[in-house]
């Protein structure tokens, strides 16, 4: 409160201990940024090698066994160490307390502990993958994973188990923070949508992750002790493993996409200079997605031998969960209508998100339909579909948010020209990478195979060419963000003319976020003739 005016969370304390033992949510967010970036590039290197391998119909870089290890590594690292934690632990950690006018999360030490769980789990798993890798795919299907898989499966699964504590503690922290630490006047319907969607994500984190934890424990028990739990050799039920795995792993898709939807809901009103269309619909759609998302896992098992009646119910529910997602897309689009639209980099990423997520969502409807799913199960159609959701959706949202809040986080501006270029590059690179995979899958190319018939080569080459453009689009921000930290001009408190509370304090923020606890008097996204109405001011 009596800090000098140039004190920020970055320079308030110095030294490596002040970072590794920090309880400041903003510093912990930066610790997460470091981890997330590291794992993103590990997973990205694996992806690059996969696309190189698939340029020719036969073996290119290595044996089929090597290829199995590559796609397993790519899947495990990207799902558990990049996508799941990506937005909540970085932007959620940094921005969420500021959005609600709080000085920190409810449990700052628990927050730091979460980071250590995340890093420990990640390093354990990476160690397993580097010591020789695993050949099961990221899904660890039974009885493959207990009886036939080679490599350090136990170590990798244990690492994922450990990182689960990070998910649970982070979700718990956000839930309590949103319930109990809102500033005076910050009613539930005045919360920014990003807070709502992070809250919905947190519900999934605390309710689905423990089921994965138990599933992995049972898998470990079976592999280590050779006692029957899932393996038919020991009298077990392998379908049970799939039920338990997908009970977590389908909701996990919403852990990945809901935070991105929150980011897009922040960005679209700011750069369209209009209030978010249908705020309450967007908010309740987040909750609906989190709730219905728990009831659709069986659509991963249409060909696995579950009963036809179960499949029918899961098919219906999978259509149902698409409705709130579609409502959100309509709301974002309607927000643009007659807006004062600005095409800054965050907005370009947001546009990319909306387009790619729509394609991913619509092809999801194909897969919810029983007959079509039977035809394309375990083909590249599936691969293309979920990459449109997780990369086209979740990763685009991650980059959108990163570009949107970068000036707040670092206090620096980045070169907008290069950022827009990277956004466009990523959009085209992404489509060139993954659209051919829809065609490949429809023609019958199965996933997880190193070799394929020569007539598929043209589509694989197109896909690999796209991947090289995409990789460039993802690497570019590293350079201009580094430049921005070193040379970028200083950002004002509110460079975008946005309305959220986080923009009412300095960039970068002081350690306690706000000089005095703000009082909220308005709903979010209030614009008058394209001009922002600020919430509260100590700028």
């Amino acid at each position, binding site marked *: 409160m009596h800090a000098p005016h140039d004190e920020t969370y970055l320079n308030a304390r110095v030294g490596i201990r002040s970072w590794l033992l920090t309880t400041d949510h903003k510093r912990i967010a930066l610790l997460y940024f470091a981890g997330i970036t590291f794992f993103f590039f590990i997973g990205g290197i694996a992806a690059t090698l996969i696309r190189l391998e698939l340029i020719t119909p036969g073996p290119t870089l290595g044996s089929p066994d090597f290829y199995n290890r590559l796609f397993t590594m790519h899947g495990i690292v990207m799902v558990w160490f990049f996508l799941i934690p990506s937005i909540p632990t970085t932007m959620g950690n940094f921005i969420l*307390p500021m959005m609600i006018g*709080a*000085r*920190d*999360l*409810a*449990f*700052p030490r628990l927050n730091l502990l979460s980071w250590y769980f995340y890093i420990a789990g990640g390093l354990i798993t990476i160690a397993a993958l580097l010591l020789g890798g695993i050949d099961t795919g990221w899904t660890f299907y039974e009885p493959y994973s207990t009886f036939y898989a080679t490599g350090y499966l136990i170590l990798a699964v244990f690492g994922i188990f450990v990182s689960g504590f990070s998910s*649970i503690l982070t*979700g*718990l*922290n956000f*839930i*309590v923070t949103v*319930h*109990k*630490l809102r500033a005076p006047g910050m009613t539930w319907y005045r919360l920014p949508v990003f807070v709502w969607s992070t809250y919905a994500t947190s519900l999934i984190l*605390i*309710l*689905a*992750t*423990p*089921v994965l*934890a*138990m*599933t992995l*424990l*049972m898998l470990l*028990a079976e592999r280590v*002790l*050779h*006692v*029957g*739990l899932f393996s038919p050799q*020991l*009298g*077990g*039920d392998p379908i*049970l493993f799939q039920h*338990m795995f997908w*009970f977590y792993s389908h909701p996990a898709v919403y852990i990945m996409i809901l935070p991105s939807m929150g980011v897009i809901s922040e960005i679209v009103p700011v750069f369209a200079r209009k209030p978010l269309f249908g705020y309450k619909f967007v908010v309740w759609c987040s909750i609906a997605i989190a709730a219905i998302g728990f009831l659709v896992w069986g659509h991963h098992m249409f060909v696995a031998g579950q009963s036809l009646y179960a499949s029918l119910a899961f098919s219906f529910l999978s259509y149902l969960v698409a409705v709130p997602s579609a409502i959100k897309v309509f709301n974002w689009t309607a927000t643009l209508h007659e807006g004062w639209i600005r095409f800054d980099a965050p907005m370009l990423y947001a546009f990319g998100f909306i387009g790619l997520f729509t394609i991913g969502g619509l092809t999801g409807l194909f897969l919810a339909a029983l007959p079509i799913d039977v035809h394309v199960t375990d083909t590249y159609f599936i691969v293309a579909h979920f990459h449109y959701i997780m990369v086209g959706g979740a990763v685009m949202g991650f980059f959108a948010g990163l570009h949107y809040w970068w000036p707040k986080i670092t206090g620096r501006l980045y070169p907008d020209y290069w950022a827009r270029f990277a956004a466009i590059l990523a959009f085209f690179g992404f489509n060139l990478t993954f659209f051919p995979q829809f065609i490949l899958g429809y023609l019958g190319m199965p996933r997880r195979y190193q070799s394929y018939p020569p007539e598929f080569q043209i589509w694989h080459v197109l896909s690999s060419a796209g991947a090289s453009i995409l990789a460039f689009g993802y690497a570019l921000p590293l350079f201009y963000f580094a430049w921005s930290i070193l040379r970028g001009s200083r950002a004002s408190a509110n460079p975008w003319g946005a309305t959220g509370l986080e923009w009412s304090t300095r960039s970068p923020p002081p350690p*306690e976020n706000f000089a005095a*606890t703000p009082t909220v008097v308005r709903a979010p996204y209030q614009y008058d003739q394209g001009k922002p109405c600020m919430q509260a001011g100590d700028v």
Partner: protein
Amino acid sequence: MSERAIGFQYATVAQQREASTLGMWAFLATEVLFFGALIAAYLNYRIWLGDEFIAAASLTKVALGTANTAVLLTSSACMAMAVMTFEAGSKRAPVLWLTATALLGLAFVVIKASEWWLDYQEHLIPALNFDLARHGGVAEIFFVFYFCATGLHALHLLIGISIVAWLATAIGRGRIVPGGSTTRLVGLYWHFVDVVWIFLFPLIYLAGRNG
């Protein structure tokens, strides 16, 4: 867990207390899903494998299981008394009640361990000495679940006993005084571990004994 000062992120003590309480409930929700997954898997096999699975359940030691249920319920009553007397301002009474809670918890673990010892002698421990020829493969699956469930429950109980012992010491030394939420939160956790047992007991022990 310190109640010496109010966290800088809170405006009032009440706010901090409410936050801690909600945090504990959220944690318990996680635990419900954790044990729930195991119980769901158990029920899957019970329905699928039918009579043979239920017959295996009759190999459990129901007298010891029933005694343990009584012990654990009594410990929860002691815990409730500890929380009540603590919040009424007493210092000696909650320490005594907490000591009783921890001792009853320990008694549960001792009875449980003796039960496992009997199981060991009857060659009922999968991966260690399970006698497949005598008991059959279905019984082995039952006992895998039996040891997973009772083992994880016992682990939670041991953690609970340590926390209760710590709390009794802290209250005895005056480090924890009424007004905070720690005692109530420890109570919540203890009751939760008790409730888990209330579900495990009929599922495991009473399954094969209805006729």
